[in-house]
């Protein structure tokens, strides 16, 4: 029984990370109709920057904030400089550009910080809670992870639903040409979309770094998990991203716990295919399947 609880709780914690990455992918998809294969590498870079800041003596909080700010900046710069050029091109062009960016960022990280994984501090204790007589695997740090991700998701939801800026961003994402006719500076909205998406990604990076250790390729499985979660939830649904992330995290946790971790990728595939067979555009997607 303890095992089940442990697996469920750690699944929720993993799921929160997938949810954050999925959220960033969904934001970018909604804004610019591009799948950002470089997302994992981008959050890797911002986490490295936080690492550099913390290593030079600053506190964890400062490092965290630096990661968020560099995420905003990195997302904005990448959209403005690179992605803007392929937004109107066939979708595969953007795929190649993001893959190229991924390769470049991984290489640059290796050049600056080397390829040996480094350890990254956690915000809170990594010792599991004690309930009754048993010690769970779920730690205060895990609680922090879940709360922060929920906070970020809610913050973004408030931004999009209730602010003028959010209204403009949604208009630019749904009908860019109409939005232009209404005076919305669509290009700037796309840049902001990428900036906020990168922010969500940076959060995931800093939160998960203590457990995966920080290296140029450490975040690849996180990107894949986030991608599967985003597809599961429906690429145009931010709430779907969060739910998809949590569901995936818990499901994979059970698979790892009861069947062994080598089956996890395949289990992810099966879950993905099962959901997509029933709802080809994801669980929460608003777009209907085109039936011919």
């Amino acid at each position, binding site marked *: 029984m303890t095992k089940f609880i442990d697996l469920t709780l750690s699944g929720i914690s993993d799921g929160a990370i997938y949810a954050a990455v999925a959220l960033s992918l969904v934001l970018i*998809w909604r804004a610019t109709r591009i*799948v950002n*294969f470089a997302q994992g590498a981008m959050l890797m870079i911002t986490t490295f920057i936080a690492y550099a800041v913390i290593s030079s003596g600053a506190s964890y909080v400062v490092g965290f904030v630096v990661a968020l700010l560099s995420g905003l900046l990195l997302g904005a710069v990448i959209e403005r400089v*690179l992605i803007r*050029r*392929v937004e*109107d*091109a*066939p*979708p*595969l*062009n953007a*795929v*190649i*550009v993001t*893959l*190229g*960016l*991924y*390769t*470049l*960022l*991984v*290489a*640059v990280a*290796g*050049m*600056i910080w*080397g*390829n040996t994984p480094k350890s990254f501090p956690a915000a809170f204790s990594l010792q599991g809670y004690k309930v009754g007589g048993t010690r769970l695997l779920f730690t205060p740090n895990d609680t922090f992870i879940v709360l922060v991700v929920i906070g970020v998701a809610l913050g973004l939801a408030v931004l999009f639903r209730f602010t003028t800026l959010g209204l403009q961003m949604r208009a630019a994402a749904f009908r860019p040409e109409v939005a232009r006719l209404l005076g919305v500076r669509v290009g700037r909205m796309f840049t902001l979309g990428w900036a906020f998406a990168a922010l969500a990604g940076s959060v995931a990076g800093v939160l998960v770094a203590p457990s995966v250790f920080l290296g*140029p390729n450490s975040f*690849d499985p996180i990107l*894949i998990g986030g*991608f*599967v979660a*985003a*597809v599961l939830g429906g*690429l145009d649904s931010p709430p779907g991203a969060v739910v998809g992330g949590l569901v995936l995290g818990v499901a994979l946790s059970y698979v790892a716990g009861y069947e*062994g971790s*080598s*089956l*996890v*990728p*395949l*289990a*992810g*595939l099966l879950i*993905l*295919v099962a959901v*997509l*067979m029933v709802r*080809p*555009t*994801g669980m929460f997607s608003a777009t209907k399947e*085109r039936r*011919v």
Partner: protein
Amino acid sequence: MNAVLGIARRHTLVRSLGLLAAGAIVLLLITSAISDYNNLQLAYGAYYFAALAGLTMLAGVSGQISLGHGALMAVGAYTVCLLIGNEGWALIPALVASVLVAAAVGVPLGAAASRLRGPYLAGATLAFAVGLPALADRFPATFGGENGLVINPPTPPASLGANFSLEHWEAWIACAGALLVMFVLYNLIHSGSGRSLRAVRDDEIAAAVCGLSVGRMQAAAFVVSAGCAGLGGGLLAVVAQLATPGAFPLSLSLALLVGVVLGGLGSLVGAIWGAALLVLLPNWTNDLAHSFSLSEKVSANLPLAIYGVVLIGAMLMWPSGIQGGVRALTAWARGARSRRSLPGEPPRPPEAAHDPPAAR
């Protein structure tokens, strides 16, 4: 002579047979003239071509993205190793089996693909690419776990003489496979089925209204491209004499996609460019890294950085790939003016190989 050319112009099969013969002769001459090292590189390029050609047909002519073709190559490679190594099969039957087994795996994938669009298909094939190699760890007895399976190198037949090197023979085998794939796909692309696939790619609803069974065509295209990837993997196993999970990481599937896009979607000639790039680019970047004496950290990562810059730069500067660039150059040289699509029209998918003028 004119009569023959006339027939060739009108009949795809005749034309493709002619191209096949010409290609075989050219390759025969090339392989005899170059060194063993280069023959090996040619063999690498040939098996990449087999997988790339199938993928470019899928992405360009049928309009479906797959991020899982690396895993399909793995299926072909493991099939060959199991059959030759464990069951003692001969070379050709084993390669045929690699095509069939990969195509069989492609059936459920293709069925899924026909129901999924764009990034959802990318996601599913991505999960497949990552999940399949993990099977090797799950069933280590059959698949050899991390170390994979090993087979003996293919021996050149005695009739070719004692001096016929292994690399030369491997180049022949791989090139034969590549020529076969080229022949089959050329005929497919320029046939009625090819036109139907393009119709489905451009507008599914219109195609369905015209009576084309959209789902079946897309699934069939996927199966064919899976078979090609399987052959590519089988050839890889023959040339490398092994199949391991490490030889088919996610980055292989991504590299295949890159090769297809850089070469030009839907273009078989572009697949040749793509294959050349996949073989030569890592070599060039490595050489470049070594010629400057840089710190360990930098030189180890330099090839990767250059690769990334090339990908980004090539996409920003030549959006229709190398073959698109070549086509644009020839059009410019002929003084033709390019027509841009009218606003309000949906964005056109990238140009695929049309019924050809001379240059293919």
